């Protein structure tokens, strides 16, 4: 058995560890807040979560008996259209840093990063329909 250590200053609240764990031991629950629940110990002889984390927030070490589960909480920023929380603050900051500014605003002046993916898709479909019907 090994213990899981999570550096909460490094974690950005993405899905990499949860999606990679072959045993599904890392759980994520989304509401207004994203809760990421890590087991305190892991019996698996793998380092997949440690390697998957691009932020190097996870490390596996010697077992600490009786250590509790680790829960990290991130406020989810709501979509400006449907108002459902969809992105953590550190993830949004990461996107703002990696996408050039001129691409963060579309031709209509919209800051699309503030909309959730399904609202972006719906908006684009609306635009296609409107321009098609206008002809």
């Amino acid at each position: 058995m090994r213990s899981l250590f999570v550096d909460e200053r490094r974690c950005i609240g993405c899905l990499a560890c949860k999606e990679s764990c072959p045993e599904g031991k890392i759980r994520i629950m989304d509401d207004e807040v994203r809760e990421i629940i890590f087991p305190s110990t892991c019996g698996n002889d793998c380092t997949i979560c440690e390697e998957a984390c691009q932020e190097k927030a996870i490390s596996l070490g010697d077992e600490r008996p009786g250590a509790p589960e680790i829960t990290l909480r991130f406020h989810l920023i709501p979509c400006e259209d449907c108002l459902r929380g969809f992105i953590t603050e550190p993830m949004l900051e990461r996107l703002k840093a990696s996408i050039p500014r001129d691409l963060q605003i579309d031709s209509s002046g919209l800051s699309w990063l503030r909309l959730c993916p399904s609202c972006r898709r719906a908006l684009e479909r609306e635009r296609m329909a409107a321009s098609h019907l206008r002809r």
Partner: protein
Amino acid sequence: MRSIYVDLDRCLGCRACEVACGRIHGTSRISVAILRDRISIPMTCRQCQRATCAMACPTEALVQEGEGISFVPERCNGCGLCLLACPFGLVDLWAGKAERCDHCMEKSPACVATCPSGALAFREEMAFSKAARTRAVLRASRAIEGVRR
């Protein structure tokens, strides 16, 4: 570069493209929705020439290569940044990996081959817009003929 183009005049909303895509890839990377009870709109990855999904990818699983975007599934850690970085919401996560249209790896895309009405075309942009313009002119001239009679 060739891309998948949609002629909305021809789309029936039958969703055959979704079925074909799902058959090949396990889940469909193209989605059709019908708006205002009359216009059906298929949407799939636009293959952006400045691909924000690739810019956001921290593991270089999605990489801009010339005019296209390549994807190395083994590098994808399922973080989900790419789907939040798509301006059109056209990237998904499926089985822990980023899921977006790759034109069936440049072979004839299954959705295009299946579309019964010819609404989807896999063409160079210029070729597609020329064909669309030609059809528009033909439509207009038929309408004028109708008025003359």
